């Protein structure tokens, strides 16, 4: 039977089989498994069928806990059911997994295995999650490559039906789930061949039905629970045999033979590595190399990890084995060894016929840490040592407990016939997409094997990508990044100054450079390091001005097609004409449905490329004086210099264990040291035109625009180009005002220009803020910014009066946007998307309350741009105060924040008790002042801080336990503001139960929901906040149900302060609502409209969209303030006018709605009608609540 060769990734391979062999699929997004659910949803939306010719039902749930509950129910009623997950998602499934296994239920969960959040979250791959689930009673089958994912998905499905044990089908997150590989596809008849129809019917027959009622889920007692638990043993005993038989059946049909344990290596091996997962491929590749040099080594690949078949394991291991290294891709702190190590030891002790081999265990590859042949060689070398190190680590330097093995990083087994190409690009230039196309071209149109793996940035704006592509005549087992590239393409010239892009170029390699400098000039513009490596490695250099070609051919900034054409032209992987024909074929396939104009511009770009591609004659010597600047400036703190800077430079792998915090505690305020210089254009202030309204400062998502009012005399030391003007506050007219831009931190989003209301009276096209090229301004504005930072912050309150008793009334109240611009932001330069709609709200909170705020942040975009290393944006003021921030999980954030509140409430209570207890020693005046302090404003807070200082001084040296306790608790006597922050995925879905409970608690917490109406961080899946008619992943046909009214639910409690805000529509209302929410002594919920890249909008127009959302009635602004009841007022106030534009005028500016019009206009029209009706109905309800006529 002919089976097509396809180039797909692991997620698609798993989803392919899962979709064809199931009837019900419950899904929930979590990286890196989300694409499996997305595939299933997409296929279901297009009515693709399973092997029985019917379309599986795909249901998105509110959490993994919800997904597994649904799966359990569907299984219990007889449907073939599956789900996909990873990491914390799998942990949320564990309670149900015990049930599913205990009830001997056939199902396969496909797991893109990922690290668990411990000292920090990680989205990357290891086996921590599945190892945490290993005791649930599920069979566990590990696939090591994309081909094996496809094959094992089927073998697992067949096995679960026969064995009745549920299966976890495991493959490594990212390394396998996201690796694009050429594999042989299975035919549907192959799948049918493996799935026994009688077993399917038997599964169905076990389903609950009132026609033949039975019950499951009983509560059992000491008399029978134990025995019941043992009833399943025969099934576990039988399973290995069943799986092997099915592997044999698979081999007989398809030709690929697998075993429960596959040994590869010398038949008389003395040294053997045992492991499972993608790392086994690298070991196998290394073993093949070492065998050719005569070494007696081998690798034993564990396929079926649970049930662990001792006899099969022992039979697979060569009897000559003398030393074994068992590698675990997980860490079980405190255990006598990691799980696989323990299993191997047990198996050997139980059944090895002769003297036991020496067994050592080691950890490798946590969180997708590279695992290379060099490391494998190091392990084999260690196995040859007289006393090999046990409980070792490989791939890191552990200078604390000295667990690591040394190895020679120069060792490589990369075959010379393989094309190894690295591409350095930007996310926005399309490099990765073009490379995925190149893999498909070579994989599917030639006999070559192909592999692609892509490394992404930790930032969402200005993100760098590195593509690793291998092409060769034999199957590729290199499950690690390219470290010897024979082709390096640098798609952004600026990378040459920031990264050592040629570190992995091998001698004689080709360098392709996108450069505005032509072949005659480019050499003189290369940094010294680059020139040196070109000469040292004798590289060939080609240049093209791809941006120019892109502009000429209508491609804008997307140079992908052009650079792809260059790659094919230079690399010779295909004959040039054939390559161009194939590129065009791929373009038509990829872009054809976006219209012929899109295809044509890509064709034009291909055709214009070759004439602009030039080889450069390399001079004989280095001529450049341009050195690579340090990653952080010399005045950065020591930790930033020693640790953060390494991560910024892409050298975090070199950091030893001792360099890193032991408990995940990191300093805040580190983004300021990472000057990314990603904006081509930056805002420039025109003081003459500016009306000092503060709107640009308010909306800047990255806090790069700031203003200060300060004493005139400070200007004496100002740089010559520093600008200032007279403040437009009457009471400050004697001082100076400056609006300063941090051009090195700006993302160039232009929100500031869009919001600026002041136009130049002579040229209305210019405003008080105008975009200009960054490069010519960089040096002068860097100096200006540094000077600006030295200017004292505007005082938040008037200084105390001379008698020192009380603060004078505040000179300025920060109750309007104009005044708030003068408050220092304590959230700056985040890695959020350029033009992010969420971050302005966070920045505003940080300005108002940052110096006494504790923030609980749900997992999601805000926890990633808020807490993703290397640098984090939450920072401190000059006094060292600032937001204390933490992220617990996705699902528990409200509870996490409540816990913080409870600590404070308890500690305040105890501290106040101690103050009273120690009153005689403290004196009545201080006691009374501490206990009765009004801390509602900054002056009050500062006065209390001073009293606490006084208190500490008085208590210092006291040995009385009460005094010492009060000394340790004194700081809680100054008021703290607890903020619970997260997105709609958290608030509406996975965290809603907790959110509801926390609001019901009545405690004084402030909840800020950054509502993008979609799961933004995981790539745009629908949440219950997604509006009717919007297209999202898991809602491909447009969301058929309306958006949940979270605010109204909270209002129903009566005691909750609730506000719905949209900064772009009414910034004054936003400010008012946030201030009222914070001031309210009880639970507050603020729901903030946050425009988002996942809406498919021009982000520069995000604030306009916010306005239109309000004007159309989609997003009514309101405040519900329970305090108003006491004064006889209606607590509910509408802060906007009745809808005055049709909904379509707002929604059809957004791709999420428009793409439904383009794909299914009838459905779009119908959903629009419903959505418009819903807008009117909601407005009528709100108007009635507000006591207005609708």
């Amino acid at each position: 039977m002919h089976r097509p060769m396809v180039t797909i990734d692991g997620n698609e391979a798993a989803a392919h089989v899962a979709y064809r062999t199931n009837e019900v699929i419950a899904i929930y997004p979590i990286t890196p498994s989300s694409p499996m659910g997305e595939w299933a949803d997409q296929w279901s939306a297009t009515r693709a069928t399973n092997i029985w010719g019917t379309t599986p039902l795909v249901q998105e749930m509110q959490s993994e806990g919800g997904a597994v509950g649904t799966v359990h129910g569907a299984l219990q009623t007889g449907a073939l059911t599956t789900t996909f997950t990873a990491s914390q998602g799998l942990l949320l499934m564990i309670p149900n997994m015990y049930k599913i296994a205990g009830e001997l239920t056939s199902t396969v969960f496909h797991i893109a295995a990922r690290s668990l959040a411990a000292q920090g979250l990680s989205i990357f791959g290891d086996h921590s999650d599945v190892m945490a689930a290993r005791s649930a009673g599920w069979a566990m089958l590990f696939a090591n490559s994309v081909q094996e994912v496809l094959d094992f998905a089927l073998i697992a499905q067949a096995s679960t039906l026969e064995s009745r044990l549920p299966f976890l089908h495991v493959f490594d997150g990212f390394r396998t789930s996201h690796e694009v590989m050429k594999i042989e596809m299975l035919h549907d008849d192959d799948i049918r061949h493996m799935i026994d129809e009688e077993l399917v019917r038997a599964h169905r027959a076990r389903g609950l039905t009132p026609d033949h009622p039975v019950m499951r889920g009983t509560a059992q007692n000491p008399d029978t629970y134990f025995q019941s638990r043992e009833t399943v043993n025969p099934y576990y005993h039988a399973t290995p045999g069943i799986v092997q038989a099915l592997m044999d059946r698979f081999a007989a049909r398809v030709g690929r033979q697998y075993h429960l344990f596959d040994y590869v290596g010398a038949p008389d091996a003395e040294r053997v590595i045992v492991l499972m997962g993608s790392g086994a491929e690298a070991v196998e590749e290394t073993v093949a190399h070492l065998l050719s040099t005569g070494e007696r080594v081998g690798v034993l690949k564990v396929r079926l990890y649970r049930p662990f078949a001792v006899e099969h394991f022992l039979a697979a291991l060569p009897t000559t084995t003398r030393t074994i290294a068992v590698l675990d891709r997980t860490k079980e702190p405190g255990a006598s060894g990691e799980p696989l190590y323990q299993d191997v030891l047990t198996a050997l002790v139980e059944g090895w016929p002769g003297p036991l081999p020496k067994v050592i265990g080691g950890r490798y590859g946590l969180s997708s840490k590279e695992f290379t042949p060099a490391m494998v060689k190091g392990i084999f070398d260690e196995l040859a040592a007289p006393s090999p190190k046990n409980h070792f680590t490989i791939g890191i330097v552990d200078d604390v407990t000295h667990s690591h093995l040394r190895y020679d990083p120069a060792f490589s087994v990369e075959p010379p016939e393989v094309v190894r190409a690295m591409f350095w690009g930007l996310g926005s230039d399309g490099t990765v997409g073009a490379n995925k196309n190149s893999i498909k071209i070579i994989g599917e149109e030639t006999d070559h094997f192909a592999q692609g793996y892509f490394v992404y940035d930790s930032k969402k704006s200005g993100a760098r990508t590195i593509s690793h592509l291998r092409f060769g005549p034999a199957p590729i087992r290199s499950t690690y990044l390219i470290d010897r590239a024979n082709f390096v393409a640098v798609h952004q010239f600026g990378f040459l100054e920031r990264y050592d892009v040629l570190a992995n170029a091998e001698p004689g390699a080709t360098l392709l450079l996108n450069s505005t400098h032509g072949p005659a000039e480019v050499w003189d513009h290369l940094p010294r390091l680059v020139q040196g490596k070109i000469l040292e490695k004798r590289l060939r250099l080609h240049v093209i001005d791809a941006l120019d070609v892109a502009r000429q051919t209508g491609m804008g900034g997307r140079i992908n097609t052009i650079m792809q054409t260059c790659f094919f032209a230079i690399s010779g992987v295909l004959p040039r004409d054939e390559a161009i024909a194939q590129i065009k074929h791929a373009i038509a396939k990829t872009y054809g449905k976006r219209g012929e104009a899109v295809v044509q511009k890509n064709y034009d770009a291909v055709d214009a490329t070759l004439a602009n591609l030039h080889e450069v004659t390399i001079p004989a010597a280095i001529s450049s004086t341009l050195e690579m600047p340090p990653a952080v400036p010399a005045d950065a703190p020591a930790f930033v210099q020693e640790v953060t800077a390494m991560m910024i430079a892409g050298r975090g792998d070199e950091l030893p264990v001792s360099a890193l915090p032991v408990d995940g505690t990191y300093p805040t305020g580190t983004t300021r040291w990472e000057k990314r210089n990603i904006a081509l254009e930056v805002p420039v202030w025109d003081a003459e035109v500016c009306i000092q309204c503060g709107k640009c400062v308010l909306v800047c998502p990255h806090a790069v625009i700031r203003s200060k009012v300060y004493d005139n005399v400070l200007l004496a030391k100002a740089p010559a180009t520093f600008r200032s003007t007279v403040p437009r506050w009457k009471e400050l007219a004697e001082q100076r005002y400056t609006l300063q831009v941090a051009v090195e931190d700006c993302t160039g989003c232009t929100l500031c220009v869009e919001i600026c209301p002041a136009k130049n009276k002579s040229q209305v096209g210019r405003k008080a803020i105008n975009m200009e090229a960054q490069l010519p301004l960089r040096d002068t504005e860097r100096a200006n910014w540094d000077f600006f930072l030295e200017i004292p912050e505007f005082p938040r309150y008037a200084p105390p009066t001379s008698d020192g008793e009380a603060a004078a009334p505040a000179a300025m109240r920060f109750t309007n946007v104009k005044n708030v611009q003068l408050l220092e932001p304590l959230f700056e330069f985040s890695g959020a998307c350029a033009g992010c709609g969420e971050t302005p709200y966070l920045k505003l909170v940080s300005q108002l309350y940052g110096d006494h705020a504790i923030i609980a942040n749900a997992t999601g975009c805000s926890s990633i741009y808020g807490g993703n290393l290397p640098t984090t944006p939450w920072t401190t003021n000059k006094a060292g105060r600032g937001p204390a921030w933490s992220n617990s999980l996705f699902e528990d954030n409200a509870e996490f924040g409540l816990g913080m509140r409870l600590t404070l409430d308890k500690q305040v209570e105890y501290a106040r008790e101690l103050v009273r207890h120690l009153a005689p020693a403290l004196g009545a005046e201080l006691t009374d002042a501490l206990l009765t302090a009004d801390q509602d404003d900054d002056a009050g807070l500062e006065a209390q801080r001073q009293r606490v200082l006084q208190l500490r001084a008085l208590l210092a040296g006291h040995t009385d336990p009460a005094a010492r306790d009060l000394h340790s608790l004194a700081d809680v006597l100054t008021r703290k503001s607890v903020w619970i922050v997260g997105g709609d995925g958290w608030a509406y879905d996975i965290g809603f139960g907790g959110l509801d409970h926390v609001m019901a608690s009545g405690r004084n917490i402030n909840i800020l929901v950054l509502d993008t109406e979609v799961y933004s961080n995981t790539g745009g899946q629908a949440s219950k906040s997604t509006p009717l008619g919007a297209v999202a992943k898991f809602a491909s046909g447009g969301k058929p149900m309306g958006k949940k009214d979270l605010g109204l639910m909270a209002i129903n409690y009566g005691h909750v302060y609730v506000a719905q805000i949209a900064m772009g529509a009414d910034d004054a209302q936003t400010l008012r609502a946030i201030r009222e929410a914070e001031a309210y002594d009880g639970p507050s919920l603020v729901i903030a409209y946050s425009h988002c890249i996942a809406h498919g909008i021009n982000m520069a127009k995000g604030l306009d969209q916010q306005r239109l959302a309000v004007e159309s009635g989609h997003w009514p602004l309101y405040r519900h303030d329970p305090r108003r009841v006491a004064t006889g007022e209606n607590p509910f106030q509408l802060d906007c006018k009745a809808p005055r534009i049709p909904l379509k005028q707002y929604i059809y500016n957004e791709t999420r709605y428009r793409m439904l019009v383009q794909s299914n206009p009838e459905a779009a029209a119908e959903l629009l009608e419903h959505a418009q009706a819903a807008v009117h109905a909601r407005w009528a309800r709100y108007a009635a609540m507000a006591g207005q006529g609708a």
Partner: protein
Amino acid sequence: MDLSTTYLGLALRTPLVASASPLSMSLGSLRSLEDAGASAIVMHSLFEEQIHQEMHQLDHYLNYGVNSFAEALDYFPDLGHYNLGSDAYLQLISAAKASLHVPIIGSLNGVSHGGWTSHARKIQEAGADALELNVYYVAADVDVTGAAVEQMYLDVIRAVKECVTIPVAVKMNPYFGSMANMARQMAAAGADALVLFNRFYQPDFDLERLDVVPHLVLSTSHELRLPLRWVAMLHGRVPVDFAITTGVHTHEDVLKGMMAGAKVTMMASELLRNGVERIGQIEAELVRWMTEREYDSIRQMQGSMSQLHVADPAAFERANYMKVLQSWQQDPTSVLLR
């Protein structure tokens, strides 16, 4: 009363034709136009530039932010098919032809040579009875001569005529150095009819926001004068059918158009403002007016007041301009006198 006329070789029941407008954007409203009495319907324009823009826009936003961040490699599901390009427009023509009885005239605004011809062919294949070329170039380039601009119009007409067999009308604008000569050249290039005139939506200034804003103003009867004059002057001199499409609001406007020499008058603003039923009302008023004055047919009056047939042909030309100015001075309501 015989209200019948011919236009583009099509026999029409009356000269009351619905011109391109949002009213021809759905099958439902097309039906209501026919039901209201339109004798033919000009579809809204297929804008090649807009089609391209939609394609590029979709491409842009589906590319935006993708493959940049490991957790969110894209943001939208792949919907498999997008109804881009002219598909929806052509489907509407086909649907209209299947369920309506009146002639359907396609309308096309192209930007590229290939776009004009390929879309024209598709409109013909979709079943349109005729095609109106909504062709205009805003001659804003200071380096492009009037002659070059005129040549672009003629090239488009020739190219389209070469690739379709259905009749082709050209909706023209009055801003040519020599209108009459241009009309003749268009006829020579193959135009079967000239539609006078294309109305351009001139932008306005928003003084509050200091923005240039688009400003759509529906026409009024007084705008009839310009096409009326030109039809009257060209009738009989340029061998094509004429249609008047600006300022037609009343039966009197229709009558004037016919007398100037038009074969049909087209309405959009009046229908948008006062409803499609205005077609029937105007038809009734036409019949009443003609009956009262003992006309037998529309044909009888077509061209009766063209320059060729009036007693004072010079009334259409420059001298007339002087009189108009004088008449302003005599008008007690004139703003000029205040």
